[in-house]
């Protein structure tokens, strides 16, 4: 048994029984990182000393608990995990994949990070991301692109590509990501792992460096659905420091898991099987739908008629918010400051000119334009109205069905460099994920097979605050299929060896 390929729950059981120590587990994951991350390049920052320190502390607690017979230990005690570099970690560099935050050491932890810490996790490091989470391939990272563990010549998806690749390549037992338009689900699909995007307001955004505040949500990347349920139970819940975080009770998502979905109504939105979709992806997803039916679920065709507007609406609202959120990076208080600027406006212009990459600049300009006097009504306000229509599409669909099922991404992982020159083509990678963010609902991507030897994701979309149901459907599917047991080859052009699953 490889320690690095354990799920969080499996590792937790071994740790509690004393069959493995947290230091052993952490060391083997750190060894794995040393062995493979020069190829995968999932991490921007590694924190091995901190990790071993946390692991030793976890071992002390585990030992003491075994001696005293205490059973009530924190759920993540001694579990090595990775955190996307857009989440603030006190004293640990947080760059958002941008030059402009190079060297920034947050003086505080994001609420989700604090909750993981309370649960006893071990921080391995910060994972690569498209700059400020703007992108779908992790190629917009100002530092380096991350590679897909299933084929190192391909992208892992994005923007949480570092977290997805780290989990897929066994460089972490689980990871946090963020999802603004698909940034957890799409890389999860492309890397063959489970990616959960909770309902907007389910998880605190405090300490998540904002890209688009009305869309951003922290999510999880794990090897299986049960681990997602466990992590959500830990990070979800009210936070007095985030006014958009809802004060609703947090169910025990793990206990709510059941492989039983007979009679459940699953809607299949016809708009999510449109042109531009890889035939291999479509065939794989249709087969997965058949499996859900075989499990006793009732499939129903539904329509989300405003789906085609989601992309333009998203690319007005998200950049508009981003143009304001990113105004604070001016080189005065933290991060990159252009050297030699001796006048305020020169400092601003040069700092931002040097510090931001092309995609970030493109979106700041788009957003600034959309909010400008004379254009606000036609662009931003109109987009908000269409956003309401998109939400109503979902409301109507959920009157008839319990969840929706669809592909996560229209294609499998594409070659590095294939779309960097064509932003529109890149934006289309999120065509099936960003409606959910606009509507503020929850979704999960679960591995459902392979097309051309590369992973394909099945997306289950749910009602607001009904994570329990999408987790249940994903779990039932996962437990009846072998896909979550497949491991990547970490080579170029090899893809999966389905026989190995």
């Amino acid at each position, binding site marked *: 048994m490889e320690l690095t390929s354990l799920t969080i729950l499996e590792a937790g059981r071994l740790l509690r029984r004393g069959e493995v120590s947290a230091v052993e587990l952490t060391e083997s994951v750190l060894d794995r990182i040393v062995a493979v991350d020069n190829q995968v390049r999932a991490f921007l920052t590694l924190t091995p000393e901190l990790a071993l320190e946390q692991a030793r502390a976890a071992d002390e607690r585990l030992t003491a608990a075994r001696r005293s017979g205490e059973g009530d230990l924190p759920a993540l005690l001694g579990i090595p995990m990775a955190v996307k570099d857009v989440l603030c970690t006190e004293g640990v560099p947080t760059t958002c994949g941008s030059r402009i935050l190079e060297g920034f050491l*947050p003086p505080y932890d994001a609420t989700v990070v604090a909750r993981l810490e309370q649960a006893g996790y071990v921080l391995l490091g910060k994972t690569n991301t498209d700059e400020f989470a703007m992108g779908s391939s992790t190629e917009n990272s100002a530092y380096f692109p991350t590679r897909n563990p299933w084929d190192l010549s391909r992208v892992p998806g994005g923007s949480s590509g570092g977290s997805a690749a780290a989990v897929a390549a066994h460089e972490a037992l689980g990871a946090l990501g963020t999802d603004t338009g698909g940034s957890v689900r799409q890389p999860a699909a492309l890397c063959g792992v489970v990616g959960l995007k909770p309902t907007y307001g389910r998880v605190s955004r*405090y300490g998540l460096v904002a890209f688009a505040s009305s869309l951003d949500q922290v999510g999880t990347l794990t090897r299986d659905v049960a681990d997602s349920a466990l992590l959500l139970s830990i990070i979800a819940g009210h936070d007095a420091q985030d006014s958009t975080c809802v004060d609703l009770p947090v169910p025990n998502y793990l206990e709510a898991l059941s492989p039983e979905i007979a009679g459940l109504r699953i809607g299949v939105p016809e708009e999510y099987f449109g042109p531009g979709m890889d035939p291999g992806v479509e065939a794989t997803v249709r087969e997965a739908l058949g499996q859900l039916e075989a499990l006793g679920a009732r499939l129903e065709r539904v329509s989300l008629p405003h789906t085609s507007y989601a992309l333009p609406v998203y690319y007005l609202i998200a950049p508009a918010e981003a143009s304001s959120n990113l*105004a604070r990076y*001016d080189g005065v208080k*933290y991060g990159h400051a252009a050297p030699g600027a001796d006048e305020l406006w020169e400092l601003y212009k040069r700092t931002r000119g040097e510090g931001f990459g092309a995609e970030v600049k493109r979106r700041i300009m788009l957003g600034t334009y959309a909010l*400008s006097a004379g254009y606000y009504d036609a662009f931003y306000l109109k987009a908000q109205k269409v956003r309401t229509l998109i939400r109503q599409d979902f409301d109507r669909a959920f009157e008839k069905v319990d969840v929706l099922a669809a592909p996560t991404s229209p294609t499998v992982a594409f070659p590095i460099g294939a779309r960097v020159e064509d932003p529109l083509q890149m934006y289309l990678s999120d065509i099936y994920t960003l409606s959910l963010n606009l509507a503020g609902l929850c979704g999960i991507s679960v591995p459902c097979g392979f097309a051309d030897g590369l992973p394909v994701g099945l997306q289950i979309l749910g009602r607001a605050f009904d994570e329990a149901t999408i987790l249940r459907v994903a779990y039932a599917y996962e437990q009846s299929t072998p896909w979550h047991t497949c491991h990547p080859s970490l080579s170029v052009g090899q893809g999966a060896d389905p026989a190995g699953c």
Partner: protein
Amino acid sequence: MPYRPTIGMEVHAQLLTRSKMFCGCSADYWAAPPNSQVCPVDLGLPGALPVINARAVEATVLTGLALNCEIASVTRFDRKNYPYPDLPKGYQISQYELPLCRNGWLEIEVDGERRRIRIRRVHLEEDTAKLTHVEGCSLLDFNRAGVPLMEIVSEPDMHSVDEVREYVTQLRSVLRYLGVNSGDMEKGAMRFEVNVSVAREGERGTKVEIKNLNSFRAVTRSLEYEIARQTRILERGGHVEQVTMGWDEDRELTFEQRSKEEAPDYRYFPDPDLPPLTLDPAWVDGLRARLPELPRAKAERYQREYGLSAYDAGVLTAERAVAEFFEAAVAAAPAGVDAKMISNWLTGELFRLMRARERSIEQVPITPRDLVALLEMVAAGRLTGASGKEVLEEMFVTGRPPAEVVAARGLAQISDEAALRPVVEKVLEENPGPLAELLAGKEPVLRFLMGQVMRATRGQANPQLAQRLLQEAAERRRRAS
């Protein structure tokens, strides 16, 4: 036809809340060392999020109610985007489309004429950091960043500098009555912007804005200057440019800051970090019930109930603490001491002592009950007015009750004829010359003799009684001779 100005005002008032607008840091930044009251939220650090201060909302709604405004049932915070180092997020959280309060008015009275100045809106926002320019660099103190700031915008309803002075004076008084603002302009607790256009009656002028005015004096002086400047231009047949002006405090002149073309586009949009705020009408009604009697209503009542002059009523009600002192004194006053007498002593003698020693009414150790006890002695003739003032001064310094001071100083007035008659006789005997003049009918010498009686009694003689006794003694001598 003469030119006349049309003036509107924007008043920024810091709210006296304990914590800042969107975080838990202390809002009382005045004496704190630079950058000692800051956190990720007011510093605008990446990932930090705002949370609305309920007390600031309450203070703003209270102000809106005092200014006769409609209170919003749903209100929203918006981002006002502009880059400047004193704005750590690159935007200010303010209110644009849905302010907390709108469509109100404040009544002012100038030269006996009452007018309502309409209030367009009252909204809530956050203060900026304090920027200090020193040689070769600029210093930033973020203690002030995020302090709750209320903006009160009037309609352009004022047409003279006197009206503006009255408006800001009234407004300051109302805010202090409500306890929402300190009114301390030296510490920047109230800051002003005016817009003024000059035109012939019935015509429209061009609006010029003057920003960054930090005192009533700056408001009135800059307006006088700007009205004169625009009038001069118009009289020469020129036209006024639409510009934003600054005010040069030292040279007392306005200077152009930016033209209309340079006006910034703030790209306002609803702050996605703050969901819309719904105000419960019952909660608003609760605040309405808590509204104190406001200065103008109080002043009118003082005139009506106590027959005070408009001027005295105005002076007594300008500060809530003074009015409360006055009302407590009136309530405690025994027969013979009326509100007018209390008003005279309060606005005359007590205010003189407060001014001389730079004390506010809260710092005066005299209780309203002790004040009226003193006035009762004066009214009953047990104490001369002069002695009363002397006693008040000692009460002001030591806080001792008047009876104690009077006894210690032996100041009780001599109103006993039997006690005073021998003194009068002695004075006449010792002053034969003046007595002869008095007997010869030279009345003015009576004042000299009065002075001698007062000297002999160390000022304790009842003056009316002393005068009568002097005249009676002289009469007896006249008859006797």
